[in-house]
């Protein structure tokens, strides 16, 4: 039924992450986890999938001694999200 919808985005958590990232300039892992109400493990796996597809860029640094993961949506990710929303509109019509 949903063959035109990008399978990578057609998943609740990944879609939530991309929707959040499209609304901000950059976000830390902890902020995404809090907003999506997901577990660290699950979020980490889904971010890796989005990163492998080139939809999200992930920067791993340190704040003091703590690891810091900052995520940003890429141009490819923005395009994929726009296409996804446009496909969604066609289904709703």
């Amino acid at each position: 039924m949903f063959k035109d919808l990008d399978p990578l985005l057609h998943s609740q958590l990944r879609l939530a992450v991309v929707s959040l990232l499209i609304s901000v300039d950059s976000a830390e892992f902890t902020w995404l986890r809090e907003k999506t109400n997901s577990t660290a493990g699950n979020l980490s796996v889904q971010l890796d999938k989005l990163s492998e597809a080139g939809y999200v860029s992930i920067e791993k640094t340190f704040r003091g001694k703590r690891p810091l993961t900052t995520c940003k949506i890429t141009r490819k990710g923005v395009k994929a999200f726009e296409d996804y929303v446009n496909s969604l509109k066609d289904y709703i019509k």
Partner: protein
Amino acid sequence: MSTENQLSPKQSLDVITSMIQQAKGNTQKNSFYFLLWGCTIAVANLGVYIMLKFTQVENPYNMFLITLVSAAVSIVYGIRQNKKSTVSTHLDEIYKWVWMSFGATCFIFWIFGGKVGWQINPIITTLCAIPTFISGVLLKFKPLMFGGIVFWVSGAVIFLVDIETQFLLTSIAVIVCYIIPGYMLKRSE
């Protein structure tokens, strides 16, 4: 939140709208900078005015050295805030760069003030209107938009008075356009 469940179009839209809603309202208000710089500029200008008017101090303009202290405080505060914040919105970025650009422009005028007959106060007061008004628009905060408009009017008026009075009027403009809206912004945070 689960991962692989099949979403209906409506569910997908619900996820998108609820997440966009979640991301809204994360713009930092930063009343601290308005209060810090408002007080700094007001005190410096008022100090220079009082010294020019009532004392024989050789170089009253040294009062402006307190801006260096505020610049250092701003940098330290900015670094600390940056460490605390877990998200940066597009508005935060615009906000930051509008003020940085304004700071760079002010710096050029301070360095080459002699080239414009030391008419720095009216020029900077007029320029202050731009970032202040834009900040008001970005934050949807009317007192700052009002402050921006008052800066434009003040800039024009300050051009018309003598150098000594310029310091007094600049000080009043800064109280009205930075300190009062800054305090109101702090209360709204």
